[in-house]
């Protein structure tokens, strides 16, 4: 068994539009360690979902993976045939989406939708599928499982729908669960419940890739975090290190904005400027136009991921190791 359930190396995913190539995922490398929750955080539009979809093989036209390698549990999955990918999806590799209402088929009972995953991958009888579905419903905290199975999606609350999505993703006991903003559409109390469910699943041995734009969510459950900006990873560290000693100016700005929001500061701290257009990225560091430390070097060449003191802490910034004045 490999140490890492998922290894992504130098992944590039682009959309080929009329206006040119939109580099949604730009040279991304990341690992999801076994039985841990690994987070990706970043503003919306920075390429989080496309990274996840690339892993699932679900990038939609006109997008496609341009280059890079993806390994699941030590096995190369880039270049697999469509059929081979289908046998992985839902089985060894699962994903849940942001919007639990529109992610469920409105004209199919939720029990049937969960059974479906099982019956695609395993030869089980109808009764067995129903029994296993009832079991997984209990595991993900859906009370009154039997009668809930006969409900249509619109008859359930947002939190319950997301639990159904999790049940659907977990019923075949996948090696990796990708959760793309699983709580963004939910209110805070339900969010806390879903997050603690994710933690429980992780303790049960599932490796999870959790995507969020919300630093609070990341801080609550992740073991290790990647910060993404304009398609690139700009900083990575274990959660405590990242929150205590952020190095990249973008990470700092993000944390600053979040803490000013939390403390109810008189003026909300925001990051000046806007996210760069992924069609025309700046030639150097993508954050350089908004960065107060920006030097000439920053505008000419994209910095590499440089190691920072502290294990497993890397940042894509020329000033990563320059002490604060």
């Amino acid at each position, binding site marked *: 068994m490999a140490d890492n359930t998922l290894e992504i190396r130098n992944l590039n995913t682009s959309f080929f539009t009329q206006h040119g190539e939109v580099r949604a995922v730009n040279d991304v490398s990341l690992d999801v360690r076994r039985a841990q929750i690994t987070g990706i955080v970043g503003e919306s539009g920075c390429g989080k979902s496309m990274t996840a979809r690339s892993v699932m093989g679900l990038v939609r036209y006109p997008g496609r993976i341009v280059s890079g390698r993806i390994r699941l549990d030590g096995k190369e999955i880039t270049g697999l045939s469509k059929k081979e990918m*289908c046998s992985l999806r839902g089985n060894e590799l699962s994903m849940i*989406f942001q919007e639990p209402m529109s*992610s469920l*088929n409105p*004209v199919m009972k939720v029990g049937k939708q969960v059974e*479906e995953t099982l019956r695609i991958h395993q030869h089980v009888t109808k009764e067995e599928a129903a029994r296993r579905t009832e079991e997984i419903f209990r595991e993900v905290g859906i009370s009154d499982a039997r009668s809930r199975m006969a409900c249509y999606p619109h008859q359930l609350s947002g939190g319950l729908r997301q639990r159904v999505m999790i049940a659907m993703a977990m019923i075949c006991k996948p090696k990796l669960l990708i959760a793309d903003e699983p709580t963004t559409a939910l209110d805070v109390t339900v969010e806390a419940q879903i997050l603690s469910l994710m933690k429980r699943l992780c303790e049960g041995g599932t490796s999870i890739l959790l995507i969020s734009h919300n630093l609070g969510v990341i801080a609550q459950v992740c073991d290790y975090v990647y910060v993404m900006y304009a398609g690139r990873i700009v900083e990575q560290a274990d959660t405590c290190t990242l929150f205590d000693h952020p190095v990249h100016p973008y990470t700092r700005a993000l944390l600053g904005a979040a803490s000013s929001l939390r403390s109810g500061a008189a003026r909300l701290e925001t990051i000046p400027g806007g996210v760069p257009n992924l069609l025309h990225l700046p030639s150097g560091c993508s954050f350089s136009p908004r960065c107060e430390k920006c030097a000439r070097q920053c505008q000419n060449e994209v910095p590499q991921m440089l190691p920072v003191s502290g294990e497993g802490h890397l940042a894509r910034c020329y000033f990563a190791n320059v002490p604060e004045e």
Partner: protein
Amino acid sequence: MVRNALQRLLQSVLVLLGAALLVFLMLRIIPGNPAAVLMGEHADATVIKRMTEELGLDQPVLVQFFRYIADALRGDFGTSFSLGKPVSELMASAFVNTLILALFASAYAWILGIISGVIAAVKKNSLPDRLFMGASLLGVSMPVFMAAMLLQFFLGYQLKWLPIAGTSDWTGFILPAIALGWNSAGSVARLVRSTLLEILEEDYIDTARAKGRGQMGVLMVHALRNAMLPVITMMAIQLSGMLSGAVITETVFSVNGIGRLAVQAISSRDIPLLQGTVLFSAAIVIIGNYVADSLYNVLDPRIRKEA
């Protein structure tokens, strides 16, 4: 749900009654005494007067109307002036032909429409998509009589594959069915394509793929089922339109159906027959709408709940 169904049923009955009254009144407004028409030009006044009384035409219109409705409920629509037979009997035998024609036409139109719509959606912007959509545009925009004459000329007259007109055996139904279904095939194909394209963008299609469904599974199990909701409604309305009598198609191909019977009734000023056929057509259309509505309710659990 049941309450809603009953409510809509009651509404339909009222609409039907209204339609009946309208037809009834319009036929009374037309100048000329039907009894005089019936007895011919040279009948003398006393004979016409006796006939008028016999037919109840001397009574107030409303009395006549309620009498007519009461009789109609017992299946008695009066006797045709021109053909001398009970209207109900004439309509029943005409309806058999209309029914055969409608079933042929809709079966081929829907199969063709759904299959080409699905292929066009799945292979969007490909050659088959353009071909099918071009053909369906022709389908929805070409008038029935033109399609009918083209079919008669090429398949009937030049190639002699099929009878040009008349329904002495079942092959006589093929050309009129093609002509009649042509329009429906086009509109079904277009609706299937556009609905399916919209649905293939839905989040739950991603979920289905994330489960490990292949393209066929996604299409058959998730996409088509949702795409069929509006399509089925359209099909129910189309079928009721065909069943209420395809006047042009039946006339051009000499199919003795409800539509042709109505045309005959008009040209011979046969009031009971016209009243019967028009009322029958109205009833079929109203029933068709009711069924379309109900189907939607049954098929879409979201509406089922609210009702």
